C-alpha cells in the first residue's frame, strides 16, 4: 500500500495515544490530551509536529506506516515481503487462541504483521528500511517478523545499501515458542553478515523496545539512536521489580539512562530524526564507495 493510502487509513485509527477530549460541537479526536503535560492540544498541531507535544516534547507512540511517512523521502518507499502472514505452528491455545489474536491484530491495524519493510530514500540516500508496529501483538518477533527482518538485512547486503531499522517491540512472541526464540539468533546472524560486509546499519530504538528484540538485531547496529523517553531494556520493568523487590529508580531503562550508561550513541528528537540519519549516512555511506 502506498504511503498516501496509509495517511488516509490513519484517519480511521483508534491508536491515538493522546486521549481524545470529547466536546459538544466538534468530532472526536480533534482535541486530544497530551500524555506528558496533560494539556489539551489540537490534533492537527500534534500531527504537524510528528506526534511530539509542541508544549512538553512528549513523544507519543506512532504506527509503523506513520513512522515511515515521517522518516522517508516522500514517495520513495517500495514495500517488500508484504504478503507474509503468521501461521500458528504450535497450535497455541492457552489463553486467547493465537489464530484469533492474529486475526484481531490484522483487523485492528490493517497490517499483515508487526513489521513493514522495503527500499526507500532518506535525505536523498538510498536505504533499505523497516519499522515495527507495536499495535500488532506488541510487534513481538515471531517467525514472520524474524524472517522479514532477516530478509531486510540480506537485501541491504545484496544491494550494498545502508539499512535503517526502527524498533518497537515487547520481545519474543511466546505463542511461537522456540521458533520465536530462534529468530533472535537468525536476525543476529544476518546482522553479523551485514557488519562483516561493511554495509552500514543504523537502528532507531523507540518506545518500547524490550526482550528478545533488544537482545538481538536491534542493538547490533553501527549507530544506535533512541527517541526521547523510550523504554529500552531486556527484562520488563515489572519483572525486574518483582525479582529485586525494590522500587525502580526514576528513569530506569529510559533512552536517557541508556545514553548515560554508554549503551547507545544518541537520543534524537523525532522531528530531527530524518536529518540526523541523513547526516550519518553521508559519513558512513556504503563501505565500498
Amino acid at each position, binding site marked *: 500500500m502506498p504511503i498516501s493510502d496509509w495517511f488516509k487509513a490513519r484517519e480511521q485509527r483508534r491508536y491515538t495515544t493522546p486521549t481524545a477530549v470529547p466536546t459538544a460541537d466538534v468530532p472526536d479526536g480533534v482535541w486530544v490530551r497530551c500524555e506528558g503535560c496533560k494539556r489539551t492540544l489540537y490534533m492537527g498541531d500534534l500531527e504537524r509536529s510528528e506526534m511530539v507535544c509542541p508544549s512538553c516534547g512528549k513523544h507519543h507512540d506512532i504506527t509503523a506506516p506513520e513512522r515511515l511517512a515521517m522518516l522517508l523521502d516522500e514517495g520513495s518507499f517500495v514495500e517488500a515481503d508484504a504478503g507474509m502472514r503468521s501461521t500458528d505452528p504450535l497450535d497455541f491455545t492457552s489463553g486467547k487462541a493465537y489464530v484469533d489474536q492474529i486475526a484481531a491484530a490484522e483487523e485492528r491495524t490493517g497490517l499483515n504483521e508487526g513489521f513493514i519493510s522495503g527500499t526507500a530514500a532518506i535525505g536523498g540516500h538510498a536505504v533499505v528500511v523497516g519499522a515495527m508496529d507495536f499495535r500488532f501483538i506488541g510487534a513481538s518477533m515471531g517467525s514472520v517478523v524474524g524472517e522479514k527482518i532477516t530478509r531486510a538485512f540480506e537485501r541491504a547486503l545484496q544491494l550494498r545499501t545502508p539499512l535503517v531499522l526502527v524498533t518497537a517491540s515487547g520481545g519474543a512472541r511466546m505463542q511461537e*515458542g522456540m521458533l520465536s526464540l*530462534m529468530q533472535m539468533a537468525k536476525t543476529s546472524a544476518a546482522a*553479523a*553478515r551485514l557488519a562483516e560486509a561493511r554495509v552500514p546499519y543504523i537502528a532507531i530504538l523507540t518506545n518500547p523496545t524490550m526482550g528478545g528484540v533488544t537482545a*538481538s538485531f536491534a542493538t547490533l547496529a553501527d549507530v544506535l539512536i533512541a527517541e526521547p523517553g523510550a523504554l529500552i531494556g531486556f527484562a520488563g520493568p515489572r519483572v525486574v521489580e518483582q525479582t529485586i523487590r525494590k522500587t525502580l529508580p526514576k528513569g530506569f531503562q529510559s533512552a536517557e539512562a541508556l545514553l548515560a550508561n554508554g549503551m547507545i550513541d544518541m537520543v534524537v528528537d523525532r522531528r530531527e530524526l530524518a536529518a540526523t540519519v541523513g547526516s550519518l549516512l553521508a559519513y558512513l555511506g556504503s563501505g565500498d564507495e
Partner: protein
Amino acid sequence: MEFERPLEELEQKLASLKRVDVSEQPELAAEIGELEAEIGRLHQTLYTALTPWERVQISRHPERPKTDDYIEALFTDVIELHGDRLFRDDEAMFAGLATLDGRRVAVLGHRKGKNTNENIRRNFGSPHPEGFRKAERLMHLADRFGLPIVSFLDTAGAYPGIEAEDRGQALAIAECLAALSQVRVPVVVVGIGEGGSGGALAIGFGDRLIMLENAYYSVISPEMCATILHKDARRASETSACLQLTAQDLLRLGLADEVVCEPLGGAHRDPAATFASVRGAIGRTLGELSPIAPDALVEARYSRLRAIGAYAGE
C-alpha cells in the same frame, strides 16, 4: 518432586519394613516382595509417560548433574578462564579450555551451585552481562585458535536486575549471538537442564543441539507464560505443554538433532550412566563436524538458522 510423592511414600514404607527382622516375622517377606513389585510398576508408569511440566521439574531437580559435574566427568586438563576484562568475573558462567577424549575444545556453561553458598555466588546460574561478555571472549578465542566449542545449557534465564540492565544485559546477549553465528569452529550445544530464553540462547545455538531427555529449552518460563496469559503461575503445567519446550518437542520441530536418554527417573538417579551417554554424543558429534571446512561450517550454520520459522505467503 510433587508428582513423585506416591512413589516416595511406598519407598518409605518399604524402608521401614526392611528395618524389621524378617526371621522373627516371616509373613513380612511376602509383603516386602509385593511392595517392591508395586514400586517397580509405579516407576515405569510414572517415568515413561512424563508430562512436559514433570520434565521441567526434573530439569530443575537440585541433585541433577550440573555443568561442573559434566566438566569434571567428561574432560581432562581443564583450564578455567576468568573475567570479561571490563567489570568482573561472573561465576554464573563457566568458560575454559578442556580435553575430551584427546580432543581439545573450548567449554562454556551456565553454572548453578550445589549448595546455598555456591548458588548465591553463582546467582543460581543466571548470568549478568559480564557473564555473557566472558562467554563472548571465549568464543573469539576459540575462533582464533581453532578450538571447537562445547556449550552446556542450564539456566532459568539471564538475570533481570537493575545492575544487569544498567550494564547492558540485552547488548551483551546480542553480541554473543553475533559472535556465535560467525565462529569458524564447530559449535556443539548440550541442553543438560534448564534452557531459559535469551540467557540460554546466548550460548545456545550452533551446528548441533543435543538435548538430554528431561532438559527443556523455552522462549519463556512456563510460570511467566502462565502469569502473562492467565495471571496465575500455577497454570504452568498447561503452558509448558503449549510452549513445546521438551527435548522431544525440539527434535520434532527440527531444532534439536539428538535426544540423549536419561536413566529412569532422571539424570540424578544415575549420573555416571548419564555422563557416559553425553560423552558419547558429544564425541560423535565433534567427530562428524571436525572434517568440515570452516567456511562450509559457518555457511551451514547460517542455513540452519535461516530455515527456522513458519509462515504463509511471500
